[in-house]
């Protein structure tokens, strides 16, 4: 009886979940087929699917994705390596914090896109400027979360370390970093999703050859609505997958945490 009831509510839940997306699809289909809206503005669903397969077959999609990935990965790694160093230094030392935090906070007030013109002026319209720009996105999140993570290490744990006469290095390795790890990983996740957004931005805002953002920009310039659609879906999917990958990593590294969800 009760199991049946549960499965019924679960079924209900599933139906609810797909109702709205189905309606959206249906409206899209009807509107585009009846040409209530010009196909220039709203391509037919099957045109989008067709465009996706063409882009895949011709290798355009994989080429552009590869370009974007290369940029994201180099920018992300650059950003987090600087971010981890500064975050740890500020977390461990109150003097470093007092020296650098005000400047860090002040610079952080500038919306990241605001740096694009400066970076382009200084680095030129090339790969370097894009990588630097993407790095900034990852950098902020990692600095802040690493700092907070280290600062919120419980005093109780540090007392345990004192009782066992741990040296500084061991203290950092055994107590401070593991305790700060959840927060650091959150920083990495936020940083990666920012980096992904900024790569799209960088490719849109700077004349670029290659990359998923420039594929969309070209689609827009040529009024190829279906390419823009494919681009949006791919960008969303990749962002989601990247986040899930880091979540899996998080789950592995933080096995010791009681699952809260």
């Amino acid at each position, binding site marked *: 009886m009760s199991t049946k009831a549960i499965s019924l509510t679960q079924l209900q839940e599933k139906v609810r979940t797909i109702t709205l997306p189905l309606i959206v699809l249906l409206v899209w289909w009807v509107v585009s087929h009846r040409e209530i809206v010009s196909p220039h503005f709203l391509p037919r669903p099957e045109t989008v699917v067709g465009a996706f397969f063409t882009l895949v077959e011709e290798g355009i999609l994989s080429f552009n994705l590869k370009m974007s990935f290369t940029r994201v990965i180099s920018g992300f790694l650059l950003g987090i390596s600087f971010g981890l160093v500064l975050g740890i230094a500020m977390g461990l030392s109150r003097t470093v914090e007092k020296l650098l935090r005000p400047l860090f906070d002040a610079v952080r007030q500038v919306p990241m896109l605001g740096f694009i013109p400066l970076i382009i002026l200084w680095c030129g319209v090339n790969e370097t400027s894009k990588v630097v720009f993407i790095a900034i996105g990852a950098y902020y999140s990692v600095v802040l979360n690493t700092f907070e993570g280290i600062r919120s290490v419980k005093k109780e744990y540090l*007392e*345990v370390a004192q*009782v*066992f*006469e741990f040296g500084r290095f061991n203290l950092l390795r*055994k107590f401070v970093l593991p305790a700060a790890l959840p927060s650091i990983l959150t920083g990495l996740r936020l940083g990666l999703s920012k980096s992904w957004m900024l790569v799209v931005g960088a490719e849109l805002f700077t004349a670029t050859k290659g990359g998923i953002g420039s594929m969309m920009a070209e689609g827009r310039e040529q009024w190829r609505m279906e390419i823009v659609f494919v681009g949006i879906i791919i960008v969303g999917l990749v962002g989601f997958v990247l986040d899930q990958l880091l979540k899996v990593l998080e789950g592995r590294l933080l*096995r*010791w*945490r*009681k699952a809260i969800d």
Partner: protein
Amino acid sequence: MGESGALQLSNLNKKFTVEGEKISIIENVNLTVSPGEFISIIGPSGCGKTTLLRMIIGLESDYEGDIILAGKKLNGPSLNRGVVFQDHRLLPWLTIEKNVGLGLEGKKYARNRKQIIQDHLELVGLRGFEKAYPYQLSGGMAQRASIARALVNRPEILLLDEPLGALDALTRMYMQQELEKIWQQEGGITMIMVTHDVEEAIYLSDKVVIMSNRPGKLKKTIPVPLARPRDRASYDFIKIKEEVLREFHLQAEHQFSYAI
């Protein structure tokens, strides 16, 4: 020089500064603990008993007077004093085995390290839980692991800060028996326990030291000359309990009138 495990507190005074005013927390405390003794410090909450214990651990500085262990004046925490905190303070990211092994970090025990950890897990009855994480243990089990962790270094003295305070009444009584067993098996280790549970103090200790409130002073030391294991319902036990409670101006529950 002093014998291993012998502790001497002389003329201890500690003050905290609160809003510019100095408040005396510990006043003129003198206490001698012989090697192998089990001592309980008992007092109302806020009387400074935990502060006193933290001074012996080495986590408090800025006090007057001397704390001398085995003939040497204390200076900061050290591995010759094991500590069991009220909250077990196991590191949540390490397995029980690794938590217990914390005290052996970078020491020369490396070869038989595994054996030492095994022995201590055995001692506290946690065999088979080596790979468990702290969140998977109940409160009582976590506290046992924390006792094992404090003992692996073979400290001269074990300091317990309300070690059973967070446990439910039944688990608590059971753990008191376990603690006594561990104390006997570890032969010769000195234990100092802070508690606010009178019965627990009498059940476990050779001497019960009573602290008074504000400023914390040692009011009275009551010896417990009863054979172990002790019977909580025995006449002598209850008489000592009455004596302790009298110090707090409390009446003992009249259990013994029924016991007669």
